[in-house]
């Protein structure tokens, strides 16, 4: 028995060997930079002031928590994520319900609805900024003209909201697809049982369809949130975080601090705080998903 297990240990390493390069690579490009970031975050280091390298302990962190701009940006990040995810989940639910019934040309409509998700984020953002929201030749103002809207500068008046519009436009198809998959896995006979039991369309939706869709919506919300944490392209293209930091989120603000302000130490401390917060939230969220998917929801 012992002989067998030593043999299988060697065998185990032999089998794992081909994966090692990938593992090393992953450690090299994720864990090493993170450790370096932690290291930098304990130093005061400004790239444009030569000789500014100095160990400061946790001072950068104190600075981060005292920085009112950091707090505003953190708030922006939360609004951006929560608002985008919730609105796109709602829109996705509506579209999925429409797509779940059969009509002529359903395949074409479905493909068209998915396209925003397939367009490069930067291109999409540019499209919204210029083709849609431009004060002079944007389509939005053109459409709203009859209602007395003149050359309204949407992006500079509502910077965060316009960024969110772009993100919602991109994430609604994702939510729609997930929820549509949920709808199509809804057992037909359960709905029929509901109908025979006296439920009208609204009661059927509320009592049977929505509970079934819950896990799909949760999955969409969590996955969407994870991706939206590091939104960068849309903000960079549409508002550059401005005016001030009104439409900046954490990654963008950190980028500004590190590469425009050259405050490496402070930016590193912000990065560490962001990563820590993200990990905590992501863990809670992932646990929620696993619970609802593993939980014995399924009846045979």
């Amino acid at each position, binding site marked *: 028995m012992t002989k067998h297990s030593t043999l299988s240990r060697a065998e185990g390493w032999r089998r794992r060997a081909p994966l090692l390069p990938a593992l090393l690579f992953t450690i090299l490009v994720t864990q090493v930079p993170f450790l370096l970031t932690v290291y930098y975050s304990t130093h005061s280091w400004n790239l444009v002031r030569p000789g500014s390298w100095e160990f400061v302990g946790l001072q950068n962190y104190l600075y981060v928590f005292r920085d009112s701009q950091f707090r505003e940006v953190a708030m922006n990040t939360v609004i951006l994520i929560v608002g985008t995810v919730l609105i796109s989940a709602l829109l996705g639910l509506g579209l999925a319900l429409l797509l779940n019934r059969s009509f002529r040309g359903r395949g074409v409509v479905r493909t068209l609805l998915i396209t925003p998700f397939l367009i490069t984020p930067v291109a999409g953002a540019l499209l919204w900024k210029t083709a849609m929201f431009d004060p002079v030749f944007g389509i939005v103002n053109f459409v709203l003209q009859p209602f007395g809207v003149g050359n309204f500068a949407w992006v500079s008046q509502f910077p965060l909201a316009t960024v969110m519009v772009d993100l919602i436009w991109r994430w609604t198809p994702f939510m729609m697809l997930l929820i549509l998959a949920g709808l199509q896995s809804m*057992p037909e006979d359960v709905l029929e049982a509901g109908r025979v*039991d006296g439920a009208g369309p609204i009661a059927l939706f509320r009592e049977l369809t929505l509970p079934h869709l819950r896990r799909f919506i949760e999955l969409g919300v969590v996955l969407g949130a994870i991706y939206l944490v590091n939104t960068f392209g849309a903000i960079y293209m549409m508002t550059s975080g401005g005016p001030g930091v009104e439409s900046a989120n954490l990654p963008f603000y950190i980028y500004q601090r590190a590469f425009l302000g050259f405050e490496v130490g402070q930016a590193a401390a912000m990065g560490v705080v962001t990563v820590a917060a993200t990990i905590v939230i992501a863990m809670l969220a992932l646990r929620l998903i696993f619970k609802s998917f593993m939980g014995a929801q399924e009846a045979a």
Partner: protein
Amino acid sequence: MATIAYQTASCLYEGAANPAVDRLTLEVDDGEFIVLVGPSGSGKSTALRMLAGLEDIDEGNITINGKDMVGVPSKDRDIAMVFQNYALYPSMTVAENMGFALKMRGVPAGERRRQVEQAAELLDLSDFLDRKPAKLSGGQRQRVAMGRAIVREPQVFCMDEPLSNLDAKLRVQTRTQIAALQRRLGTTTVYVTHDQVEAMTMGDRVAVLKDGKLQQFAAPTELYDAPVNAFVAGFIGSPAMNLVPALVTSEGVQLGESTLPLERDRLAALHRQELSSVTVGLRPEQLEVVPAGQGIDVRIDLVEELGSESYVHAHLVDDRGGASTRLVARSHRRAPGRLGETIGLRHGAGSVHVFHPDTGARIDGEEMSARVGTGV
């Protein structure tokens, strides 16, 4: 309490060439338990779903208590349905499942709980009321599905093969429970099954369907004793009735070397229809095993021992109708013969059934046809 009437009701699925249910006419009395039976694809489920409002009635109509049901949505028909896969609501507990219809009807929570507990008591489900369906065994799920139906006290129960997912023993047990429950509640019930034993044991009357068409609608014993055609004859009874081609002679019909005598008026009917050959139906228990030479000589292909009795599968030795004429006989003795052995089979009690060789319709003498009212 309700009467049900199908009046030449048809259902044609989109894209299908033939209607799944073809001009079905049935009248079900108040409190009656009727069974729809037939082979797979014969339209049993469709007929039931038309009654429940889950399929359109494309032609004709269905009435409940004389009220026309065409265009009435399921939720307004006051029907409870038990589905083959139970279709329990996965996100609700057993109690919520059973109380769902009451909730939809606006019954207050306390009253709902009381009725659910009462039904749970009846079905031995009291310990499971707070569990989700996924954590129940197959038999318990089946009982929850039944409970969901009886809590409502509906006008009609519809059941579509509710026992087909249970193991053989539980099925027999549940079969008697359902029948007893229905007698006790007195609710008109339409029950679909492909299992003719269920049909025979549970139904007050049984409707046999084939290709969407009603073949016969009668009490189980009548189906067994006087099937209206060869299809019903072969479908009802296990093992199936022997249906063999035979020549018509002046005294009766000829099977192998021997002649089975027929009454004079049936012979007259055969001659009137100018038939030279017919399909003869003999139930396995109508054939006695006797020593070779004393009856129809057959060679044994297989002996099925069931313990209390045995079935002998055999083929005619001197076969004029082709080598494929097979017969099954029931014997009360064990091991009535060995494989390959030649034995005799003699027609014992009960008269033989005679069917038209092409249409399969039953052929009776005047006297008989007057006595047996066909259900079609």
